């Protein structure tokens, strides 16, 4: 235990060795990894059954996760950390890195989310990608993605986590640019990869610093010794980890890749936004709670980044007409909520994870729903070409509506419980932060209602030759399951179950009463959301939506359509200076370096032009120089001999 001021404690990581069912921990990662290997190495020989195998293996991991989850529940509260040593990864000098896995309540919940939602997305993809000639390869990449994410959450040390972290980056690159014949998709993949590298730099520096300070990268060792480090060191560590988290979770200022990532097939977006990838940053911060608890300044930075991201994402969500990009903006905003909760410390970690799980359900639901709509609308993503889709696609409509009600926080739905808890905790911590969170909820209500209205209600705007139709059941069944989870997910908070369950990892916070009773806060939050919804209804629902986006709009809308100029900022601050630096170094290379290298031979050549005049072709002049040379030699010899 690390005791903090104010009666809070955070537990150290102290796992017991894995036995029984837990000794199969490695299999959870190995199953999808084997799937990826078989599908990608097997090539076209696996075309026929590849998608079935690729779906079955994550389901296998899900079954194992469920079994282990219940075994973990059967254990005592203080005995819920299990580690498995697989083998020594490498041993260099004092650095001894084992391939160790850690299974505790935090990883348990992540495993359920990743394998559960991930499996549903796999099932959905069977239908969604059925006409794609490269479907088998797609499933190989999906399996790689899932296994990398599982490695990330199961690793017992930061290097193992980093392995999964990079695996996730690789898989996201492969999947975002899956339709690589489109230049925009290829560019989006590269962009995601490059921006993620910036975040990875922060994480890898943090890992190096962990090694320098504690001689190890293991959670167990670091959590035991972190209290010995100075506050400056811990703050730097926290900030470096935050940079890593920002990259992976698309938080300000490393958010620009998230919207371009919509170039990938829709199931990929669902996987990135709900089950894998963007949740990794939140995981990293909650997992590193022993660092952040000792670094209040780093926590403040997390909160600031989170609040900027909440509004930045919401702004984009309000203005985009592309349904997937609007959803992506919403993801950035919702991840901001999780980061906010994680930045609030012991009181907030459990709620961050709670919101992460709920978000996994409803966001996967809505992304897959959006995919279903696109499927019926000939892959059109512009909401201005939709309208009244509800008549043609009733199941998609109903399931999407469940996700919608969950994300805006309609009382009783999963998002209501999770967002309410975050707002409450934020208010208890700092009224300004709480107010921002409250306001963000209102904006969420606005942009989600806008999306809902433009897609499923308002006037019919699609072309004559577009015939929206309901998707096949292989796609709607996952939607129904996810919709049910979006509705019912809130049960996890009953009796504060999830808080108690996560306590062995996140610690027990001193209870801080919010300035207002919880019920009053909930009512205010619902009212704020209602205002947002009403505003959307007045602005969009009550009138006809034009088929073309109006151009004479306010600066706020234009900025939102331009993703709040995130790309412009990146271009101005990084990309263009980089280009100029490259052009400059090219000139330097051509003129200076090449100048020196070619200048030497040129000088020798010039000298030779003068020297070769001696070769004038006249034999007699050669004879004269021969004679002269001989004379000089003879005279020299005489001079030496005579003296």
């Amino acid at each position, binding site marked *: 235990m690390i005791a903090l001021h104010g009666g809070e404690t955070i537990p150290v990581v102290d796992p017991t060795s894995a036995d029984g069912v837990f000794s199969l921990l490695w299999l959870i990662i190995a199953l999808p990894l084997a799937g990826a290997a078989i599908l990608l190495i097997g090539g076209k020989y696996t075309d026929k059954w590849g998608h079935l195998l690729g779906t079955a293996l994550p389901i296998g991991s899900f079954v194992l996760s469920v079994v282990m989850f219940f075994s973990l529940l059967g254990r005592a509260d203080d005995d819920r950390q299990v580690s498995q040593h697989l083998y020594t990864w490498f041993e260099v000098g004092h650095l001894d890195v084992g391939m160790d896995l850690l299974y505790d309540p935090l990883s348990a919940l992540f495993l359920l989310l990743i394998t559960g939602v991930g499996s549903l997305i796999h099932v959905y993809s069977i239908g969604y990608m059925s006409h794609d000639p490269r479907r088998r390869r797609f499933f190989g990449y999906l399996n790689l993605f899932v296994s990398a994410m599982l490695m990330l959450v199961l690793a017992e040390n930061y290097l193992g986590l980093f392995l999964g972290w990079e695996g996730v980056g690789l898989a996201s690159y492969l999947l975002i640019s899956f339709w690589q014949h489109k230049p925009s998709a290829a560019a989006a993949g590269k962009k995601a990869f490059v921006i993620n590298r910036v975040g990875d730099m922060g994480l890898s520096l943090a890992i190096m610093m962990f090694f320098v300070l504690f001689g190890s990268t293991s959670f167990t060792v670091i959590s035991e010794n972190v209290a010995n480090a100075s506050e400056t060191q811990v703050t730097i560590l926290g900030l470096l980890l935050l940079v890593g988290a920002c990259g992976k979770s698309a938080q300000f200022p490393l958010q620009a890749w998230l919207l371009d990532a919509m170039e990938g097939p829709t199931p990929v977006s669902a996987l990135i936004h709900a089950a894998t990838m963007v949740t990794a940053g939140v995981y990293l911060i909650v997992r590193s709670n022993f660092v952040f608890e000792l670094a209040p300044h780093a926590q403040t930075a997390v909160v600031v980044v989170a609040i900027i991201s909440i509004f930045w994402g919401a702004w984009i969500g309000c203005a985009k007409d592309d349904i997937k990009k609007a959803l992506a903006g919403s993801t950035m905003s919702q991840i901001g909520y999780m980061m906010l909760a994680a930045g609030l410390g012991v009181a907030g970690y459990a709620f961050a994870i709670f919101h992460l799980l709920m978000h996994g359900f409803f966001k996967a639901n809505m992304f897959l729903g959006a995919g279903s709509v696109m499927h019926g609308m000939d892959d059109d993503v512009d909401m201005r070409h939709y309208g009244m889709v509800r008549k043609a696609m009733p199941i998609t409509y109903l399931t999407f509506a469940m996700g919608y009600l969950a994300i805006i926080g309609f009382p009783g739905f999963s998002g209501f419980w999770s967002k309410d808890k975050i707002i409450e905790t934020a208010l208890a911590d700092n009224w300004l932060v709480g107010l921002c969170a409250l306001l963000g909820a209102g904006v969420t209500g606005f942009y989600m209602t806008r999306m809902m209205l433009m897609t499923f209600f308002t006037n019919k705007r699609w072309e004559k030759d577009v015939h929206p139709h309901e998707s096949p059941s292989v796609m709607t069944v996952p939607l129904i399951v996810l919709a049910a989870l979006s509705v019912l997910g809130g049960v996890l908070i009953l009796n504060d179950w999830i808080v108690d369950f996560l306590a062995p990892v996140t610690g027990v916070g001193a209870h801080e009463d919010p300035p207002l009773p919880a019920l009053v806060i909930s009512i205010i939050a619902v009212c704020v959301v209602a205002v947002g919804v009403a505003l959307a209804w007045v602005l969009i629902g009550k009138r006809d939506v034009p088929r073309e986006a109006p151009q004479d709009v306010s600066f706020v809308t234009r900025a939102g359509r331009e993703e709040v100029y995130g790309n412009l900022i990146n271009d101005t601050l990084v990309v263009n200076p980089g280009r100029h630096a490259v052009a400059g170094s090219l000139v330097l290379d051509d003129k200076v370096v090449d100048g020196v290298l070619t200048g030497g031979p040129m000088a020798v050549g010039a000298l030779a032009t003068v020297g070769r*005049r001696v070769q004038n*072709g006249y*034999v*007699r002049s050669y004879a004269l120089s021969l004679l002269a040379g001989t004379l000089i030699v003879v005279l020299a010899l005489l001079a030496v001999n005579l003296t």
Partner: protein
Amino acid sequence: MNITAYIVLSGILFTIGCVGVLTRRNAIVVFMCVELMLNASNLALVAFAKQHGNLDGQIAAFFVMVVAAAEVVVGLAIIMTIFRTRRSASVDDASLLKY
């Protein structure tokens, strides 16, 4: 035995040959001058051999003669060929091999 006279004669012959090589244009004459220089050195070698009372110098002179004979064969052949192609035996005319 005093060999000074021989050495002086050898020096005079060598100088004549040398000046001939440097000043004459006709390839045959230049060639003859080269032979003169070789024989001047032969004379010096034989004179020194006589002074030292051994055969080293005379053997060297034989070598020079053999080499000179071979050189005459090759050199005359080259001069003949040049004369046939260029209708001239002037060494200054054969000045193609230059910068």
